[in-house]
């Protein structure tokens, strides 16, 4: 399988802080790659670098063989890369359907308005928001807003989906539901790169995992390998926020 | 004046432009609000010195501390009335609210003073070098500007409140978590910004005549200086102000003064497009808030 996304030796600093340090990894087509690490490890920065929100100081990022380093976000979205944000950013005064229609109309397929609405409805169906399509985005619960964020990215029918802590703030039932949705997305052929703190989720969903600490890659491999890696365990020991409450006390 | 004299005078006047710009850049850097009353508050400073020195007979330069305090109080009041509710909302809102306060102020100003020309006569011995005499008022204004700028620098970097201001401008949520009373800091910063505007107006009034509507050209100059010097960077504002003064000094012997707004505007837009972080921002001199 060819690499869909290739991150090569990427670095980025902000003032005095080296947020990302010579990072390299690749994501194979059709797979789910988990990106984990303690708080402040630089995970969201990596997303911002891939997505074009910020440019790396050095290094190269390729998507489907094309160089997307330092390209603006809209160009990258047009190529078929969509992302969700850790802090959800719905278009508050627009309806749920309109929110998704934006995703559908300006993404990879660049659909016309009517077709975009159709694609938007499909995406809403996938995440289970189709019953609230006329509601204003501001009226949704936090869980609803998270699903909207996901639906909006899906509506663009992307090839690669970047999920930034899409499970954060959800209760156990909502987490189960979302995991099922993510599995369904992958089975439709969408590749996924996901940042997540919920260890149980990321270990069950990911095909491979990359561990970041202080901006550099600490480990990479199958979930089981990474979980057993002593360096990884050490990096996490000082971060109680990682514990999945359902598995408290287990490594 | 010869070209050298024109340039030197440009430096003097430019320093005051820098002071004016500090008012805008401080507020902008700290709370991402663009104070569109800025030009009118400069004019308020002009009228303040006119009234205090003229009607009340206060010695001209003694009005400075009074205007500083008055401007500060006016700024704090303005913050609570028009800005407080809108912090955190899209910048469009605070832009419109300060814009509307500005309308009210100009409206009141024109009712009281019309569009007449005013002047603050100051007799101060000038400095004679060769053929040219540099007006004492220009020298005094530049000197006071440097003093105030230095005081501001010390305040922001050494005083506790000053550091609180920088903390809030860097990351408001974090500052709140640490226990800094952010609302009060914002009000203080706004007051300070307006105070700087008023004081710069006072100094300008000692140098040039003015009307109620004189604010606009100085507003434009303040913006030019702000983007040249980098947002939230008072030192940058001073340097950029002097640079602008130099530019004007260079241009005025060759060009009618009515072209100045055109040139300044073109400069403004060109700098914004070429250097989104301000020229000095590119050179690595950071201000209170990198945007």
């Amino acid at each position: 399988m060819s690499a869909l996304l290739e991150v090569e030796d990427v670095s980025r600093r902000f003032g005095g802080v080296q947020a990302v340090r010579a990072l390299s990894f690749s994501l194979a087509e059709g797979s789910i790659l988990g990106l984990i690490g303690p708080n402040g490890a630089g995970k969201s920065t990596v997303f911002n670098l891939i997505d074009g929100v910020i440019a790396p100081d050095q290094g190269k990022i390729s998507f489907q063989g094309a160089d997307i380093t330092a390209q603006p976000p809209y160009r990258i979205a047009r190529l078929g890369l969509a992302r969700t944000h850790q802090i959800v950013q719905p278009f508050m005064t627009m309806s749920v359907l309109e929110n998704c229609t934006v995703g559908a109309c300006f993404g990879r397929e660049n659909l016309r308005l009517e077709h975009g609405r159709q694609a938007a409805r499909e995406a809403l169906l996938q995440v289970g928001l189709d019953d609230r399509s006329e509601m204003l985005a501001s009226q949704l619960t936090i869980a609803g807003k998270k699903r909207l964020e996901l639906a909006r990215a899906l509506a663009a029918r992307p090839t690669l989906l970047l999920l930034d802590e899409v499970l954060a703030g959800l209760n156990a039932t909502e987490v189960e539901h979302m995991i099922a949705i993510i599995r369904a997305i992958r089975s439709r052929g969408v590749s996924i790169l996901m940042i997540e703190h919920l260890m149980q989720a990321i270990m069950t969903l990911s095909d491979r995992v990359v561990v970041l600490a202080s901006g550099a890659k600490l480990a990479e491999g199958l979930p089981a390998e990474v979980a057993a890696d002593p360096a990884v365990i050490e990096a996490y020991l000082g971060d109680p926020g990682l514990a999945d409450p359902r598995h408290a006390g287990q490594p | 004046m010869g070209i050298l004299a024109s340039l030197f005078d440009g430096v003097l006047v430019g320093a005051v432009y820098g002071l004016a710009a500090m008012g805008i850049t401080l507020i902008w850097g700290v709370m991402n609000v663009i104070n569109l009353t800025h030009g009118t508050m400069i004019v308020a400073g002009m009228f303040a010195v006119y009234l205090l020195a003229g009607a009340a007979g206060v010695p001209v330069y003694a009005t400075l501390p009074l205007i500083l305090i008055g401007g500060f109080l006016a700024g704090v009041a303005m913050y609570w009335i028009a800005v407080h509710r809108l912090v955190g909302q899209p910048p469009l809102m605070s832009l419109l609210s300060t814009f509307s306060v500005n309308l009210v102020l100009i409206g009141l100003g024109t009712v009281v003073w019309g569009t007449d020309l005013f002047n603050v006569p100051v007799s101060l011995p000038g400095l004679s070098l060769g053929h040219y005499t540099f007006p004492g008022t220009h020298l005094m204004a530049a000197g006071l500007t440097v003093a105030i700028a230095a005081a501001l620098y010390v305040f922001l970097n050494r005083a506790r409140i000053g550091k609180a201001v920088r903390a809030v401008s860097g990351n408001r949520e974090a500052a709140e978590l640490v226990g800094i009373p952010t609302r009060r800091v914002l009000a203080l910063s706004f007051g300070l910004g307006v105070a700087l505007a008023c004081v710069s107006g006072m100094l300008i009034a000692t140098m040039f005549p003015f009307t109620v509507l004189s604010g606009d050209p100085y507003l434009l100059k303040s913006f030019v200086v702000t983007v040249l010097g980098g947002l939230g960077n008072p030192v940058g504002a001073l340097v950029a102000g002097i640079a602008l003064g130099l530019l004007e000094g260079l241009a005025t012997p060759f060009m009618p003064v009515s072209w100045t707004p055109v040139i300044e505007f073109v400069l403004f837009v060109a700098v914004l497009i070429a250097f989104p972080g301000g020229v000095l921002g590119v050179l690595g001199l950071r201000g209170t808030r990198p945007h």
Partner: protein
Amino acid sequence: MTVLRRPFVWVIGAVLLAFVLVPAYGNNVELRENLLLAALYITLASSLNMILGYAGYVNFGSIVFFGLGGYLCVWLMSAHGWSLFVATLAAGVTVSALALLFGLGILRLRGAYFALATIGVNEAVMAFVANFEPWGGSSGIYLSPELFQPLGGPARALWTIYYLMVGVMGLSLYLSYAVKRSKFGLALRAIGQNEDAAAALGVVTPRYKAAVYSLSAFLPAVAGGLYFFKSAFIQPPDAFDLQLSTEAIVIAMLGGQGTVAGPAIGAFLYEQLRGWLLTSPAFSHFQLVIAGTLLLAIVLFAPGGLMGWLYRRWPGLRRILE
């Protein structure tokens, strides 16, 4: 045509009909002049609303389109003998093209920076025109009365111009409406809500912003041509009167920015208020104070304006009026 099934199109039609028939009945010249100004304000506010209300970008110098359009039209007619219709159209197209070029550069700036740049653009253009001799410099351009002859003489010409202005107003309302319902409008509104999120979803933000800036220039430029031809005289302070820009903003906010009916209703109400203020001896000087206080009150307490308030009370209204 499906467009005729939309209720709002009928509303626009009814408004146009009223504007055309009411002053014609009884040949009421005074009313016509009043309504001409109203139509102008509606045009300016509706066009501004596309960039202000939809995309969330404040254009403080929107009057520059009006002034430039006026100058171009008057100059083309007096110096080159072009007919009114061609000259106004040419003015509209030229100003739009200039706005597009300028917009591509200036709209790379984010919200606040852009607003600042527009403050300067009006002053800079006015200073330029005031020094530009071919356009009369600071004295302006006078139009000779002969130019009214092809339109049937001054009296008839004034009526023709009025109908044309009403037509322009109708176009501005329809344009505002059509854009809002289009994919273009969706992109604009996404930009207005959250520009970064819109960009991440693939909206090529600089292109859309420049496009709406250019589009918002067209009808005000045409209106400028009509207005200054009618006045037979144009000079820099009248053409680039920043206060009109300000009033357009107040109107759009008052009526309800982002809605189609809002700026129209706001313009009508404001123009009546202004007329009353100007003739009232007590308040004529307080025009700015009142405008400012009104705007502040709206921004602080009712940012949705009149239509925002109406739509909250009667949501069904939204389906008819937009």
